[in-house]
């Protein structure tokens, strides 16, 4: 399946776009998405490895399925405050 992923901060700037579309191998989980992004964009791989992902604006686990997700986002290590 194909997943649209929202990007922020370094990821957004490095790829020059607010979101990317990524093909994910089955089972289409957050973990599979993490691997797919790291392979497709090696310049982001080390950051993506220590990122979280959000499904519909909630933090998700690597084993969570993407099938029912309306909005998926890559949450690079945060630095607000």
């Amino acid at each position, binding site marked *: 399946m194909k997943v649209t992923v929202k990007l*922020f901060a370094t990821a957004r700037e490095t790829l020059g776009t607010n979101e990317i579309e990524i093909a994910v191998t089955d089972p289409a989980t957050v973990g599979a998405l993490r691997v797919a992004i790291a392979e497709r964009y090696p310049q982001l791989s080390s950051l993506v490895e220590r*990122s*979280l992902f*959000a499904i519909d604006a909630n933090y998700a686990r690597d084993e969570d399925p993407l099938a029912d997700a309306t909005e998926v*986002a890559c*949450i690079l290590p*945060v*630095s*607000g405050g």
Partner: protein
Amino acid sequence: MIQLTSEKIEPEKIIAECLSSAAGAVLLFLGTTRQFTAGRETSFLRYEAYESMASSEMTKLEAEARRRWSLCGCAIVHRLGEVPLGEASVAIVVASPHRSAAFAAGEWLINTLKERVPIWKEEHWADGTCEWIHPDNAPGTVVE
């Protein structure tokens, strides 16, 4: 009270929102733009958020703080966009009948905000360079 804003933070208005006759202790924390970090000079900061999720995570923080401590007021305000030197990027206000709860809740809120809320800081250094800050000590696992 949860707010993301591109305006200058006005602490007295946030405090006024949290005050009540039930409060015996009011705590305000401001995170401000520091000029020097490890000897390197900052020119200004810029903050970017995943806004819908940042709001919902801040709302969860407030709810969790109200569950854990006896609070009669709680506000979390984060500024987005450019923040000049000496101005606040974040304000947290906690009002409680007793001071120990106010200190504990205030410190927990800012520490947990910095772990969980999807907001990123871009340091603009005085030498003209800039970089997004992505701390090394990020959990790497799901935050419960």
